[in-house]
């Protein structure tokens, strides 16, 4: 299994035309670290993730391991929020085999590996079904297997559990924690759910409201897994993160004209 790679963001900026979405982001991510990007909606967390994936041109440099990111690559797997990205004309097994098929891996080896990763995400019973025959949670499991089979050193996840019901989300958070430990890959995980970040992350990166979003604070979550969300440390961290994000949400609302500026006291 490929070990996690480090990620280095050096003065990264992302613009669409004149609109500066993200400006001057510097971040060092250790190999095998679990990082959560947290911030108000629309702040540019997903944009930053897409940049690491190589989908967007950036100012500054993004490096994964020793390599500078310029385009998408098999070293960086991407799990999307929408399970629509599964190919509906392929069965779950065929979806999972996709990357290996492109790489020209022989059918027998492909199948063995696919079965391994389908088992890892708990979908062995559904391998021959089509995505539309699966629940939302099962589809996200399939997406994760389809990414892991390529043995990426980095997995980029864009609110992968955002569209799921609370119970399913909780189960999958637990499974992701286990899978992360088994594979040792580096994970960058975008979410707007503070509890989710607290449950999963080694470090939580709080972003400022856009435009020109940047890093506001970085919280280290130095708690053993599995984490107890009711513990005093967790609650303390939750309050701190909530206040940090709250400020940014307020700023975003003011910028959007939805809220009047409050006098600074």
């Amino acid at each position, binding site marked *: 299994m490929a070990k996690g790679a480090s990620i280095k963001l050096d003065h990264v900026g992302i613009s669409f035309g004149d609109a500066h979405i993200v400006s001057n982001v510097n971040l060092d991510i250790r190999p095998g670290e679990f990082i959560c990007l947290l911030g108000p909606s629309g702040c540019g967390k997903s944009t930053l993730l897409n940049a690491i994936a190589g989908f967007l041109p950036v100012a500054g440099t993004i490096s994964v391991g020793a390599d500078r990111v310029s385009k998408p690559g098999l070293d960086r797997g991407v799990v999307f929020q929408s399970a629509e990205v599964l*190919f509906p004309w392929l069965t779950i097994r065929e979806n999972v085999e996709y990357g290996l098929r492109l790489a020209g891996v022989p059918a027998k080896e492909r199948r063995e590996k696919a079965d391994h990763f389908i088992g890892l995400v708990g979908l062995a019973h559904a391998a021959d079904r089509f995505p539309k025959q699966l629940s939302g949670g099962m589809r996200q499991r399939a997406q994760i297997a389809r990414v892991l089979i390529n043995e990426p050193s980095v997995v980029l996840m864009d609110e992968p559990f955002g569209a799921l019901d609370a119970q399913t989300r909780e189960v999958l958070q637990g499974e992701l924690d286990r899978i992360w430990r088994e594979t040792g890959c580096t994970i960058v995980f975008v979410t707007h759910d503070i509890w989710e970040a607290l449950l999963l992350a080694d470090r939580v990166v709080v972003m400022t409201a856009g435009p020109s979003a940047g890093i506001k604070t970085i919280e280290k979550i130095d708690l053993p897994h599995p984490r107890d969300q009711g513990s005093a440390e967790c609650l303390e961290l939750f309050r701190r993160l909530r206040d940090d994000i709250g400020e940014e949400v307020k700023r975003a609302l003011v910028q959007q004209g939805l809220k009047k500026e409050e006098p600074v006291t």
Partner: protein
Amino acid sequence: MTDATQGTMMKRFPFNLRLGPELSKILIGVASVICGVLLWHIASLYTSPLFLPSPVSVGQTALEMASDGSLFLAIGASAWRIGAGWALGVILGVPLGLFMGRFAVVRLIVDPYIEFFRFIPPIAFVTLAVIWLGPGEITKIALIFYTTIFIVTLNTIAGVNAVNPLRLQAARSMGAGKLAEMTTVIFPSAVPFMLTGARIAMGNSFLTVVSAEIVSAQTGLGAMIWTARNFGRTDWVFVGIISLGILGYLFDRAFRLATQRWFKRFLF
């Protein structure tokens, strides 16, 4: 429809018929056709055979034409032209649509022609087609090809444009290059659009074949309908029209069955 609503429909069925829902639907259709033919028969009693031949005489004529083989020759000629022109149009329209949808340059080059020609019905080209291609089979096939390729191309372009961009991103992040994107994401995504285009084009091919055969053919159902005029045989016209309807139905059925058989996984 849910089982419950089907159940209530069954209960309202006249004469308390206790048949399966499928069978009763078919029976309603059959009963409707029988009623239509009866009405036709009654109407024919009050008019001359030249104005409206009775269903019985049309049936007899059809039997005669079937027994001397002329009916099947006509159906065969039309079916062959439709099949050949349509198939060619689909085979070339799909890649053309894929390229036009994918590459802006190709689109820009071909677009003015498409926008211009799409409003010109194939029948407007019959004269030119005869002058350029002669009076033979190729003329009729070319006209059906023309009518088909537009519809298939435009639908395929729509299919390419409707591809979920996230699916392309996902494919790229799993190692897909330009070619693999086309074959493993764009093509399968666009299949439902292509099939819709091909099916609409099938209907238009029937319109075209009759027009073309009326203007320039000795064989085929269109020619048969047109020749009837010279002999005052309204019953031939009816035989031709009914054959066209049945042929169209069979083509559409065959197309749908083939679609279900070979493209089922793409019809999401």
